[in-house]
């Protein structure tokens, strides 16, 4: 269980997260949503041992994550940042870096096992064909898939992602989220991710956490969280909610200013 207790976090003395309580069980598929600047990325930083909390603590299976060695932690929890780095190395070299936390202290070359796991990660994400391409020369969607493959090569039990679908077209969005859903069920990988797109969040996540001004406003199933009243208050803009007739999951639409009068009347 990954657990945040009374978590207060910030940068340069400015508080961004203000008393978050959260516990994530193994096997969950949790989405973190909220307006820009509500502290989503900061929360991920605190959960992945990048940002040290000012108060409170984050624990993994009862152990404070800051008392776990970085290498050990990286074998349990792997993180995919918002923008996969465009670095001048091949996709395969990049994915093999995911094996770094598994290296022995004096290990110099990748073992057969390391190569096999990287191969498997490329296979699962469907990017075997890109192995010899440079990370700088592939598209944003492909780079995102490579970043996920690298995270999978760490063989984590927890996968934390920051907006894995940002800047991607709908086909890539669905491809990535389908893949995560599949890994969640098939390999019992716990997925925690920040999503901006409320519709995708409602469609894929089994549980949502809505952040506002660094506090948790609402936790629960998508149906419980994606409610018109709550969203309008948090985002400060009128919305229309409904149910996707195909998946019967909630959807959210924004209402442009010129139609807001009509919405009030109806």
């Amino acid at each position: 269980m990954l657990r945040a207790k009374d978590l207060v976090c910030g940068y340069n003395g400015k508080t961004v997260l203000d008393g978050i309580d959260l516990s994530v069980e193994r096997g969950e598929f949790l989405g973190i949503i909220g307006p820009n600047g509500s502290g989503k990325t900061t929360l991920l930083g605190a959960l992945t041992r990048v940002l040290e909390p000012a108060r409170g603590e984050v624990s993994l299976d009862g152990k404070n994550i800051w008392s776990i060695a970085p290498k050990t932690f990286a074998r349990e929890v792997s993180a995919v940042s918002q923008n996969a780095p465009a670095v001048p190395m091949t996709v395969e070299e990049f994915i093999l870096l995911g094996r770094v936390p598994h290296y022995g202290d004096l290990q110099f070359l990748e073992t057969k096992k390391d190569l096999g796991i990287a191969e498997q990660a490329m296979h699962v994400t469907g990017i075997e064909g890109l192995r010899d391409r440079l990370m700088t020369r592939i598209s944003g969607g492909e780079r995102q898939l490579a970043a996920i493959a690298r995270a999978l090569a760490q063989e984590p039990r927890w996968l934390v992602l920051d907006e894995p679908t940002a800047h991607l077209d709908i086909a890539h969005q669905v491809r990535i989220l389908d893949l995560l859903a599949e890994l969640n069920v098939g390999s019992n990988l716990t997925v925690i991710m920040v999503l901006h797109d409320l519709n995708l969040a409602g469609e894929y996540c089994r549980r949502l956490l809505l952040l506002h001004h660094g506090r948790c406003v609402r936790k629960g199933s998508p149906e419980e969280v994606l409610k018109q009243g709550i969203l309008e208050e948090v985002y400060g803009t009128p919305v229309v909610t409904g149910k996707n007739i195909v998946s019967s999951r909630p959807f959210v639409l924004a209402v442009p200013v010129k139609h807001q009068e009509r919405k009030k009347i109806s």
Partner: protein
Amino acid sequence: MKHRSRKWLMWLLFLTVIASGVAALALAAGPAGIPVRKVFQILSGRGGGIEQTIIWDIRLPRLLLGIAIGGGLSLAGVILQGLFRNPLVEPYTLGISGGAAVGISLNIVFGLHRVGILTMPVAGFLGACSVIFLLYVLSVKRKVLSLHGLLLTGVMINFIASSLIMLILAMSRGKDLQGIVFWIMGSLDEPDGSLIRLALGASVFFLAVTYFFHKDLNALALGEEEALHLGVPVERTKRLLFTIASLLIGVSVAVSGMIGFVGLVVPHFMRKMVGHDHRILLAASFLAGGAFLVFCDTLARTVIAPLELPVGVVTGILGGIIFIFVLTRQEPGGTH
């Protein structure tokens, strides 16, 4: 990926051959030309006379110092470029060499070098260490070593140091002036055997130590946060690597002055040739840096013999031309 380690071995072999060739040339060439065959005879203990003295007492120590300084500066360049993720950072960017130069200049002006020639490298090393200390203290905030701050502070310290040197130059008399200028241009002419052994020992030792960080350097290429995600203890690694690079620079500059461009061009060039993986890049740069500096020094000794060009001039001109050549041939859109 199996072919990769074979490729690395081939590179190492290739560079070793090049370095050996350059070394043979360096031992053979000079005002007193000695045929290569004779060089080997003397090295294996046969032969003798004046040529034996030239090889063992003059050219071999100079060759070893060239390998130590060229290799050390290139290694420092690889470490700093990897740490800062900036291919334009080089050993002299951070002002450490400037600190050494100020130390040496003061040493010359105050006439301490007349007390003993060893005060020169000592003063240089003290100057370098004070800058390292200053940099470190100014860049550590809230237990975090800010690389951005380090770079900015380093560049500023470098400016201040060069202004100080100019001030010292402006106020010093003819002979001192010449001494300072010659020292700043850099030279591998070092009569003291123990200093050469120290420089060689230090650079080989730090090469070995850096190899313990090959995977951390590779992970840091993705950025500090990504490296954290890969379980690299980023703060500790940054500090250690910064210290290693600084000491390498300090020793190099203290022993042989400011020999420019080796630490910038060689790592850059090697990255193009052998790739970005530090497992090969570290050794390749060390070998190539040593060979490059020895080659430049041989040119410097022989072009206008019996006079000698400052080796810093040769590395600057040759290195500069290579650098421009590589940069302008870079494919569009490629980084580094």
